[in-house]
């Protein structure tokens, strides 16, 4: 066998069974069932909104981010096997972390959705698997604001392209990618080539990293 064997993580394994997830949030039942208002149909620039939270502690920007991302984080966690109440609480925690760690958001290396995903993923490991999650040291962001803005814009374009490429993958591969991120892949499935087109976005991020390293030295 040449592939790395990785422990299959079924949703139950990640979440320690539904029983645990249920008790996790038993004290905080859902109140009401009305949906929050949907954001404007002309989609805001999520990255700019995170920057407004980062630089100005802007609550209106935060509310827009919340209305867009919190229901998706909740959906993501439920796909990963959490029950509704646990997913709701965890989604709120993720949004609190977004506010608290906004200073570490670097738009030249991650879009808002990417960054929020990493917070949600780490929270999932922390809460549901009760494991420590080692993460690489955060690099300080931004040599100068103009370079940041240009790099960030380019990264957003690349991220959109990657997202479109993901949509265009054959159904089987797309399914593997989604299930990998929901944490429900078997060893063999994780070993399969996904054919993800990472070329241009990778060189874009590497460029941003190199600029950052130069500015630091």
């Amino acid at each position, binding site marked *: *066998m040449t592939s*790395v*064997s*990785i*422990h299959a993580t079924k949703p139950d394994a990640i979440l320690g069974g539904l029983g645990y997830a249920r008790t996790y949030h038993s004290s905080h039942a*859902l*109140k009401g*069932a009305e*949906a*929050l208002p949907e954001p404007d149909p002309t989609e805001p620039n999520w990255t700019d909104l995170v920057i407004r939270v980062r630089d100005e502690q802007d*609550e209106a920007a935060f509310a827009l981010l*919340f*209305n867009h991302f*919190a*229901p*998706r984080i*909740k*959906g993501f966690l*439920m*796909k990963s096997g959490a029950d509704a109440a646990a997913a709701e609480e965890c989604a*709120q925690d993720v949004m*609190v972390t977004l506010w608290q760690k906004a*200073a570490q958001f670097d738009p030249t290396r*991650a*879009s808002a*959705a*990417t960054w*929020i*995903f*990493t917070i949600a*993923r780490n929270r999932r490991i922390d809460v549901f698997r*009760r*494991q*420590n*999650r*080692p*993460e*690489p*040291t955060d*690099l*300080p962001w931004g040599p100068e604001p103009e370079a940041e803005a240009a790099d960030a814009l380019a990264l957003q374009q690349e*991220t959109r392209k990657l*997202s479109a490429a*993901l949509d265009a993958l054959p159904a089987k591969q797309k399914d593997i990618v*989604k299930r990998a*991120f929901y*944490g429900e*892949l078997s060893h063999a499935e*994780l070993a399969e080539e*996904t054919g*993800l087109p*990472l070329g241009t*976005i*990778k*060189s874009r*991020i*590497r460029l941003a*990293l*190199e600029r950052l390293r130069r500015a*630091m030295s």
Partner: protein
Amino acid sequence: MKTTHHLNEQLQMGYAAGVLPEAFNLVIASHLCLSDESRATQCCYDAVGGAVLDKCEKERMSVDALSATLHQIKTCACDTSAPKICTGVFPEPLQGYIGENLESIHWHSMGKGVRQANIPTAKGACVRLLFVPAGQAVPDHGRQGTEVTLVLQGIYADMGERYSRGDIKITAPDAPSQPVAENGQDCICLSATDAPLKFHRWLHRFLHPLLKR
């Protein structure tokens, strides 16, 4: 930092998806601190995760969720710790487990100057720090699982390839392997396996109590 031997897609995907055992996560996070190439690729896998999240079906939040979240933000202490930059032999994620310097490590001798220290992590895999004096061979061991090794100091040479600080060596269970620390500097590496190492026969019997610690 320039590195030449990197992770494979399976490990990067597994790390991004958050499904690997903690032991592997520790090796990967430490590697990412030392390799810009891998860090850039890892950001791409995270971006795939971001796309999956963004396209995920929405689940309705409770009506007071936003105000409850804002209340939480205003009432809890803010974590504004500034990011640290890796210095010294141990990358920052590893420092969180074993401290900052070599002197603080509790080594177990394996003979001929070779030493190891097991690092406690969640079950599912194990990870250890290995010290091999310059010019020495790494003790012969068979593997039941895959081994992922990160070189932190010196040169780790195996089957004609050379691995230096920041490089990753992935060894499949059935792959031949005869690693040695090259002459020059003592070699230190961090190594995770998803099954306990099986040292050959007498050595295994001798080391078993130590490895079990």
